[in-house]
């Protein structure tokens, strides 16, 4: 069943179009991450679903109900704000009880439900604290508890981890995921951090310039990006300009300035299509030029030669920048077992299964 449905939603602020004909359906219990750079319209979309902004055109449905014109307090969306928006004049208990009080829930029932949610977010014992007496992580969990206690139809999270330090952010990702699955609640998670989106979400919606670029599972996004922009935004990527020569099912053969290359591609673009082969840095393999010894990987059909220009030690791996052609430098991350240095001539190879064809914008 569809829990949230956006139907060609448009939002304009004056002359600026923040959201441009957005269509999106969320299944019950699904967690979707809205991923995109700041100003891409993801927060505006979230605010329209919550009822803080009215769309310029289009419709928003929650379950069976058209809520496009419904005011925020009648939508039953739980929301966690980026700065948490905890009421500074109320204790943790009163903050969490607020939504239940608005729903005229009997007092002992409120006490029971607040206690139970506090247990779930591991905040018991802090009921009488004020928000300023809490650590960042505790504030974050209070905000989560306040949103969850009202049994909302959907949970909206607006960059909920942006104000936490790196270590805590990592922990909270898994915690939020666990909590969401425990409550089985349909959730939209807005973030500009691609690793957060990949870890957390069932599906990721990449937005840019107010438009939906691609929606799919994290693996879809990472391995089969539909546009160069998406490929570039999600993780590190090498884009090799190519022209498709022929295709056979998903397998394609291309020509490039580096010679013939093989890869995989989406349905649609046929021979003569212009575009790029996208290859992730960890899928490129380095070997010495002296022999075939180092390039023992099966299926490494694409081979080229290059010169190491830069090398950065990252602990578990080494980050190389290898010049393979005029104005083309590849980023390669490999294990520390193959220690090449700047100036070394090297061979670069990658398997055709690891190269994905991305058509250029015009095509």
């Amino acid at each position, binding site marked *: 069943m569809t829990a949230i449905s956006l139907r060609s939603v448009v939002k304009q602020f004056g002359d600026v179009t923040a959201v441009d004909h957005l269509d999106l359906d969320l299944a019950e219990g699904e967690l979707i991450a809205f991923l995109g750079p700041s100003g891409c319209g993801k927060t505006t979309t979230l605010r329209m679903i*919550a*009822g*803080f902004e009215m769309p310029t055109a289009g419709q928003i449905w929650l379950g069976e109900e058209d809520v496009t014109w419904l*005011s*925020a*307090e*009648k*939508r*039953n*969306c*739980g*929301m966690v*704000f980026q*700065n948490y*928006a*905890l*009421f*500074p*004049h*109320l204790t943790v208990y009163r903050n969490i009880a*607020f*939504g239940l009080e*608005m*729903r005229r829930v009997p007092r002992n029932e409120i006490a029971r439900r607040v206690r139970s949610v506090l247990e779930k977010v591991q905040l018991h014992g802090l009921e009488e*604290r*004020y*928000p*300023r*007496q809490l650590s960042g992580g505790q504030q974050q969990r209070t905000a989560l508890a*306040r*949103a969850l206690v*009202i049994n909302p139809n959907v949970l909206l999270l607006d960059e909920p981890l942006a104000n936490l330090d790196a270590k805590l952010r990592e922990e909270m990702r898994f915690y939020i995921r666990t909590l969401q699955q425990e409550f089985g609640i349909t959730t939209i998670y807005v973030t500009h951090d691609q690793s957060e989106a990949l870890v957390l979400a069932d599906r990721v919606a990449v937005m840019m310039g107010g438009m939906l670029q691609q929606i799919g599972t994290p693996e879809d996004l990472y391995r089969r990006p539909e546009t160069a922009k998406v490929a570039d935004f999600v993780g590190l990527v090498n884009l090799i300009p190519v022209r498709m020569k022929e295709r056979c099912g998903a397998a394609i053969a291309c020509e490039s300035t580096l010679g013939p290359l093989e890869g995989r591609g989406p349905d649609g673009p046929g021979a003569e299509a212009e575009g790029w082969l996208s290859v992730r840095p960890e899928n490129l393999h380095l070997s010495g030029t002296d022999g075939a010894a180092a390039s023992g990987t099966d299926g490494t059909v694409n081979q080229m030669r290059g010169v190491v220009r830069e090398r950065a030690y990252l602990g578990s791996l080494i980050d190389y920048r290898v010049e393979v052609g005029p104005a083309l430098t590849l980023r390669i991350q490999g294990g520390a077992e193959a220690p090449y240095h700047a100036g070394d001539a090297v061979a670069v190879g990658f398997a055709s299964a690891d190269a994905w064809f991305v058509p250029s914008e015009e095509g």
Partner: protein
Amino acid sequence: MHRSIGSRVGRVAYGTLIVLLYAFLLLPIAIVVIASFNSGNYLRFPPQGFSLRWFRHFGETASFTRSFFFSLRLAAVVTVIATGIGTAAALYVTRTAKRYREFLRVLMIAPLPVPAIITGVALLIFFYAIHVGTHGAFGLVVGHTLICLPYVFLIVSTVLANFDRTLEEAARNLGAGPWTTFRRVTLPIIKGGVISGAVFAFITSYDEFSISLLLGGVGTTPLPIQLFDYLRFSFDPTAAVAGVISIVMAMLAVLVTERLVGLESLYYGRRS
């Protein structure tokens, strides 16, 4: 070496200067307190001895006590009006106003930069012309409200400008309607500003002179005017008693604000 001696001399001189300046600033306040408890007709050094005779004299002089209580009542009425309409105006101007926002802002604080004495003259002539406010306290209430309104407006506007509006969105999101949101979230959080504005308005009205000089009448003479008239002809320390009352009241006001705002910071969890 030379430089460090020089800088030490400089620091001592700077410190002395600061102390002297504070002494200059606070000297008249000290003089008022000493004079009110001094038994002599004039304050001399050393003081002639401790006495409460000037307090008794102040209490027994009907014109003073009448003016004192009139000033208190006037300040109370003005505070209520100025705080009410000033807060409401600040809410509208900082949140809803669009096209006329700057105009309204300037209008609200306009009575502040223009000399109060000229405002008083203009009001006096105007009231005579339209035959209202020439009797009773109406003119004084209007004039004082004009002077106090900008302070309330400015203080509450500042608090509202710093107000995080996602708090209101959070309340709406949790199911509170607009009015409930204002009552349960907005008002408790801006309360500190409203109270400070009210205290400021009260003190401003209680000490107001220029407007009162022109619009005060028989039976409606605020205390500063009564003192002013008294001081033109006599010089005894009865006026100092009014000063001490002022100081005590100001201290009470500070305490009250501290308590209320202090309670609030307890709310906010600054103190635990």
